[in-house]
């Protein structure tokens, strides 16, 4: 029997003593809402009427034809605010309200989780502060503006590499100092217990819907599911309901400039077990145990850690973890635009890029890709690659 808050040897609560009361309070609330029909019903109505769920499961015909395998896209990009992050933000905002906390804080990388948190805060009349690395602020300008319009305060973080890891450090430090009146909405399946389980449970709606939708469309389960993995919340959300089914699951990490260059964010394939942001999991670190600053063109995958349940799934072999470079992701981004008229997030483009490999190896004929977000936010990042010269 695994210890509470653990997935095999991964997870736990590696936090300063100050955060314990808040984590225990949150854990009690999380346990209570799981069995609370009223809570679940309220969340369901919000997801359906406010965020637009269920999101479509779309058969991408032209993409399928080009690959020679049948591909469905789970359209999380069609959610309100443009990504799966809203599923978790709405759930945690409801929990914050139940805890009597009227202030929420969040960290953000690409800005999607920050926007989702700011949105949920506005919807519930809560105060919201979002911590964001200066580098990410520069490359995700539009999302910063969106958060401000939604009434959130965006705090620039200038420590470290000035990206998601550093924003998370700063959010935790702020939480330590304001733990009594403030709830921290972690954006992924990372952090101390109960966050990895709680965020997973708020995101599993993705996989639950896929299961129903694919049965209705195809009368059978897919051969494989594919999703990108940074912290791993969209992947866990689509995978988890299929854990006991005979369905292959593939998590795609960001190889940045290529694993051999050292400039990547390939935590599961290239890291060692360690502790970051409150849980024990695979971690990109030096021989001396210092955390390595990761690199990816996509701000949402640019994280040196990964959710502890992913580490467990890696060890047990239940999920296969592979990686895709910036260039491959950008190519997949362009391809989906031109073949399907859908602009995918750069993060999700990593999952799309892996379809090329699957098409070549021919193992799977029916595949669902989690299109976790839309790519309008990535214009500045892809412009030099896709629009650098006039291709019209």
């Amino acid at each position: 029997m695994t210890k509470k808050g653990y997935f095999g040897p991964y997870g736990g609560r590696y936090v300063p003593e100050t955060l314990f009361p808040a984590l225990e309070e949150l854990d009690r609330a999380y346990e209570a809402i799981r069995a609370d029909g009223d809570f679940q019903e309220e969340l369901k109505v919000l997801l359906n009427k406010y965020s637009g769920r269920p999101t479509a499961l779309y058969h991408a015909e032209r993409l399928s034809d080009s690959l020679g395998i049948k591909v469905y896209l789970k359209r999380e990009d069609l959610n309100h605010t443009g990504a799966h992050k809203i599923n978790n933000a709405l759930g945690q905002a409801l929990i914050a309200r139940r805890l009597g906390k009227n202030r929420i804080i969040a960290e953000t990388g690409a800005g999607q989780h920050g926007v989702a948190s700011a949105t949920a805060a506005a919807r519930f009349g809560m105060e919201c502060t979002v911590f964001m690395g200066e580098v990410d602020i520069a490359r995700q300008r539009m999302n910063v503006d969106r958060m401000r319009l939604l009434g959130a305060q965006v705090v620039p973080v200038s420590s470290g590499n000035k990206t998601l890891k550093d924003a998370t450090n700063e959010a935790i430090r702020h939480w330590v100092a304001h733990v009594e009146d403030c709830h921290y909405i972690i954006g992924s399946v990372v952090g101390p217990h109960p966050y990895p389980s709680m965020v997973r449970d708020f995101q599993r709606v993705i996989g639950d819907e896929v299961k129903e939708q694919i049965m209705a469309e195809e009368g059978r389960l897919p051969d494989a599911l594919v999703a990108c993995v940074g912290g791993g919340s969209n992947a866990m959300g689509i995978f988890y309901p299929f854990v006991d089914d005979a369905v292959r699951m593939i998590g795609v990490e960001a190889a940045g400039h290529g694993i051999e260059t050292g400039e990547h964010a390939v935590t599961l394939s290239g890291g060692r077990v360690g502790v970051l942001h409150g849980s024990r999991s695979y971690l990109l670190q030096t021989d001396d145990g210092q955390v390595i600053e990761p690199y990816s063109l996509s701000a949402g995958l640019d994280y040196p850690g990964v959710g502890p349940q992913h580490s467990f799934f890696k060890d047990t072999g239940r999920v296969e973890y592979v990686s895709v470079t910036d260039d491959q992701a950008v190519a997949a981004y362009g391809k989906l635009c031109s073949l399907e008229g859908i602009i995918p997030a750069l993060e999700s483009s990593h999952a799309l890029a892996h379809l090329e490999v699957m098409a070549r190896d021919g193992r799977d004929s029916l595949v669902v890709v989690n299109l976790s977000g839309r790519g309008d936010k990535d214009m500045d990042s892809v412009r030099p690659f896709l629009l650098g010269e006039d291709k019209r």
Partner: protein
Amino acid sequence: MKDLGIFCGKKAVIPFVMTGDPDADTTVKLVESMVEAGAAAVELGMPFSDPLADGPVIQEAGQRALASGTTLSSVLETAGRITERTSVPVILMGYVNPIMSYGFDRFAKDASRSGVAAVIVPDLPFDEGDELYDALRAQGVTPILMVSPNIGDERLAEIGRRAEGFVYCVSLLGVTGQGGLHQGMKEYIERVRRHVSVPLALGFGIDGPERAASVAPMVDGVVVGSAVIKAFNEAGGGPEGVARGAKLVGDIVSAVG
């Protein structure tokens, strides 16, 4: 139970410095000077890239130490040099990841060999700490537990049962070097005393002699980190910095005495 020899009648003043900031030789000199100025023990920081419980002063000190090539091995070596030169107990303080990477057993053995008396790991609460803390005990090194003002009675009682050496009382809800003490400090410390029988040291937010003097009557010792590092670093981090850091420690020793 093992007595660390830190709390001997007088109020103990325990400075914290970051090992290797800006280099090991300076750390050795700074510690020697602080001991001469009356420090009852010293805490040597083990730098980490992502120090969650630290404010800007200690974060930056850690960054300087890492930039100068400080590793956990070199911290242990520096600790050995210090224990050869001084008689006061040396306590290592730092985050769990570098220690896990080094190996818990290997760390415990090497810490013991360097003469380290105790180890504090702020992100390793007792619930997660058995592996490291047992390894340390087996080598005669004392693991120090922390408590915070918002801790519940049940948890406090558990820490009371497990505590050895002393308990590190965090003085505020926040990170190191943050201004202001917890409201209701007296009630907090009294509550800790009801559950904990070992001596109490108070730290985080002790910014100078005045505040140290105001809290000293309630506890057995005070830990001063950011203030010492700030004094040391603002004077250039060289010999003048060593003198300033030591003077601040001396002033605090006089103020609590």
